[in-house]
């Protein structure tokens, strides 16, 4: 059934596959987040005074610092959006582990039901 749906979906002309759409949305949202972060970075951080703050002995110029800053924010945001997308797509669907279709919530009952020899146990 799922294969059939995928086939139908993929035959719609010009329509991206779900995976491509996920990537597109993830990249776009990460870009927006990194842009907003770069505005903030531009407003509150002066790369000139960062010289002594670097752990490594780096002397980056203004453009490179802002460029690296955007790249870093974009990479972190992309990691977050991809992970979110992955977590949502692979969430529990109550599919049966043995390929027997959907499985319901496990049923439980008194252990001694139909097992009279368990009646004297502390499970009761």
């Amino acid at each position, binding site marked *: 059934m799922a294969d059939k749906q995928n086939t139908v979906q993929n035959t719609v002309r010009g329509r991206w596959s779900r995976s491509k759409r996920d990537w597109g949305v993830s990249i776009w949202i990460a870009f927006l987040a990194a842009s907003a972060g770069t505005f903030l970075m531009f407003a509150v951080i002066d790369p000139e005074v960062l010289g002594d703050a670097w752990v490594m002995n780096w002397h980056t110029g203004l453009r490179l610092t802002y460029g690296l800053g955007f790249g870093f924010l974009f990479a972190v945001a992309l990691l977050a959006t991809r992970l979110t997308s992955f977590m949502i797509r692979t969430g529990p669907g109550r599919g049966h582990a*043995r390929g027997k279709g959907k499985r319901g919530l*496990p*049923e*439980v009952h008194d*252990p001694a039901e139909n*097992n009279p020899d368990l009646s004297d146990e502390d*499970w009761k």
Partner: protein
Amino acid sequence: MSANQQASHESLYKKEPKVYPRDVKGRFAFWRKVSVYLLLGLYYVLPWINVGGQQSVLFDLPARQFHLFGLTFWPQDFIYLALLLICAGLTLFFFTALAGRLWCGFACPQTVWTEVFLWMEKWVEGDRNKRMKLDKGPWNRNKIVRKSLKHFLWITFALWTGFTFVGFFTPIREFGQAIFAASIGPWETFWWLFYSFATYGNAGFLREQVCKYMCPYARFQSAMFDHDTLIISYDEKRGEPRGGRRKTADIQELGLGDCIDCTLCVQVCPTGIDIRDGLQYECIACAACVDVCDQVMDKMDYPKGLIRYTTENALEGKKSRVARPRVFIYGTLLTIILVSTIWNMTTRTPLRADLLRDRNQLYRELPDGRIENVYTLKIVNMDQQAHMYTISMPGNEALTWTVDPEPQLGAGQVGRFSFAIQAPADLGSGSIEVDVRFESEKDPDISVVSDIRFLLPADQGR
């Protein structure tokens, strides 16, 4: 009511039923208890132990120093942090490839704290059946008292957890005194309450939902599994068809397998799954179902191990291999990185010296004709004792230098000095490479060399 109106009143959301795990005893329950005591013991006790007059584990963020069992790490040592994280990752891969979700069932903080919160719940509200009955019952005096007491214990334990957590970042004794003196700062208060709330919420309420919906490891673990990885599995061939029976019944006559369908394996499961449905990613491999099923098998005089730690290959009657390429690769990598990290950490030089050229002037000519380059010298004394440092320039005896003030630093101090190198007028032109050596007066083994370029006038000496 029309069909549309009726549909609008029907919620599509189905509330997840609360899981009431039944208490279980057995060998895996014993080891889980040992793991809980050991890990929580380390967590709650470590900040109170001092090594060399310093808190054994202290991540002093304002001072940018990490103290670990007498060793001090600086931001420049972040490579060690990266290596330790790689080791942690490889350890997880190694044990997952070998024994499945050992981490989830026995060592994950979510499991460990949930276990403790469940103990408290059991002490106050009773066993599984009593807890279910209490939740279904009306709000009478008994229910109010028990629920209040349970939440009081949970909140107290969560506050202690949050307090300990902050104690890894601020000296815990001072923090404790500050709480009693009601003089803690806003950030300490925020993080204390934040982590207390996170503990209370995660271990008291979210519980298995974290494993099922929030934890990425559960989704990734299949990449580390193969057919020889240990998993907790129900032996379907032996157990089915399942059904109730008397102990003395002839199961062959009844046409039954060994599973008596008591559903105890479901009742003890902290994530509320039925292991008999096969391997599911909701299974955190706590082995509670193994313990309880073994007890039932004992009771019925059947062989143990209907639910057991096994491999997919073993279940299919094939041979299982422990020593596999992935186990060997993870194990070798882990050993190499761990040994080299520990060796590097314990033998590193507790001194760092950086020379930064004065950007305003490449060089200057002194009244006596000598050429001078000016630098800012930054020295980090990463040792636990004070040092005076001597400076030399091996291989460049013609050069002289001045440093102001004297390069003397206390334990864990960072100092900035004005440093200038002078060269005779006839040294040459362009630039020369200079090695500047910094050495502790007390301990010649504590020394570092900084490479710099000394600039001379282009036409010097012509």
